[in-house]
């Protein structure tokens, strides 16, 4: 039973959670990050462009500046790969969005195992990032790529196990059924799984305590070092797209998706509010935490975080046998 019309999935592809949503999130997230971090550090943040609305147009101004800066293709790289890998990376980071429902009928590609597919696609992003860093052929990008591989070795297992914990509770990965089943939100049913998922989200989007691959004081910008101009937008902007996909997945898995709304429009608004609630705390982490070393992040991922996610799966099994869900 799927409330499908031909037009609603096209709306999903074009507007939300599709292309416009992704590009809009880029602008809002970059602005919000700069503003929130500035607030914590007792600064004003961007104000020069459009002072009346709190410098909201600053990301647009940055975009225009980057479009008009020279596109340099280094001589030592394979030019076709150098040009195409950021594009592939951006699209790979947006792909999980296609399999998650943002409201009744608002899904780009329905599949009864959609959420599991979305997580697998999310884990594959690191492959594209490493490919991009390799095609740049630079010492800093090499170190960045190694750190990205190792960081994904730290969060992949806990992320998968937190997914297993929730799938055991729901018994399905259908993007609609999962939301319908959440009379009690997933975060309340299994808080351990939510915590493991959320920390894995911080790691996979390389937000602050784990901002190791692109650590500016150490490796310039890690895997993004060689890029400038518009290619920089595609490569570095992609991390925000990953955050967008992760927040959408988190709101569907743990925060009851579009509930309590029932129709498409209000459902989409509820989902946006929940995504913001998940994504904004990640944006201010930059002002709160210092940076781990890669070996500390690995040890953390394989000790506390792994234990947390194993406990989450056990807790889910116990809940099923206790007949709670």
């Amino acid at each position: 039973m799927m409330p499908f019309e031909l037009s609603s999935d096209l709306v999903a592809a074009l507007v939300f959670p599709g292309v416009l949503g992704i590009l809009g999130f880029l602008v809002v997230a970059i602005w919000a990050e700069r503003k929130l971090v500035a607030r914590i550090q007792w600064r004003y943040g961007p104000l020069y462009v459009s002072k009346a609305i709190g410098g909201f147009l600053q990301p647009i101004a940055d975009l225009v500046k980057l479009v008009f800066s020279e596109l340099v293709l280094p001589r030592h790289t394979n030019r076709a790969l150098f040009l195409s890998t950021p594009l592939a990376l951006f699209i790979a980071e947006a792909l999980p969005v296609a399999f998650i429902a943002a409201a009744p009928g608002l899904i780009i590609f329905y599949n009864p195992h959609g959420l599991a597919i979305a997580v697998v696609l999310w884990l594959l992003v690191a492959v594209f990032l490493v490919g991009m860093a390799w095609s740049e052929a630079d010492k800093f990008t090499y170190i960045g790529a190694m750190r990205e591989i190792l960081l994904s070795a730290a969060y992949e297992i806990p992320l998968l196990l937190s997914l297993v914990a929730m799938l055991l509770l729901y018994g399905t990965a259908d993007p609609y059924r999962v939301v319908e089943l959440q009379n009690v939100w997933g975060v309340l049913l299994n808080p351990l799984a939510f915590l493991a998922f959320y920390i894995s989200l911080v790691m996979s989007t390389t937000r602050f305590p784990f901002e190791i691959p692109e650590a500016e004081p150490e490796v310039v910008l890690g895997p993004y070092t060689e890029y400038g101009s518009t290619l920089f937008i595609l490569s570095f902007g992609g991390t925000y797209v990953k955050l967008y996909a992760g927040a959408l997945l988190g709101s569907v898995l743990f925060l009851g998706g579009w509930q309590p709304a029932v129709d498409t429009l209000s459902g989409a608004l509820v989902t946006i509010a929940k995504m913001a609630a998940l994504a904004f705390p990640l944006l201010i982490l930059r002002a709160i935490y210092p940076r781990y070393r890669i070996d500390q992040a690995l040890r953390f991922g394989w000790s506390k975080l792994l234990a947390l996610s194993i406990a989450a799966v056990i807790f889910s099994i116990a809940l099923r046998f206790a007949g709670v869900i």
Partner: protein
Amino acid sequence: MIAFALFLVLLAIALGALVLVGYLLAPKSPHVAKERRFEAGNPPFGEVKRRLLMQYVGYIYMVTAIEASAGLMVVVALWRGVVSLDVALALATALALIAIYVVRYLEKVADVKKWS
């Protein structure tokens, strides 16, 4: 399916157009120094090579061993939608094995002093 194709194509066109517009509009003044490999302001020297500590290979080994079993658990969780006793036991055994394996070797792998 149409929507999915449209999503991918539109995204690719939007991103490609951004790069193309930038390429056409931005000034071009190529210089040999700009097109060199980035080396923090110095002329590039040596090969793109770094040492990889053996310590980290241990983590890669653990992740290749355990990720496949975690993937299998996703399949088991989706199998029939019900958690029967044998499924629960199998999951618990797998998790216990992972825990034992990690507890046994993590201390050795994570000890930086031993490896550097």
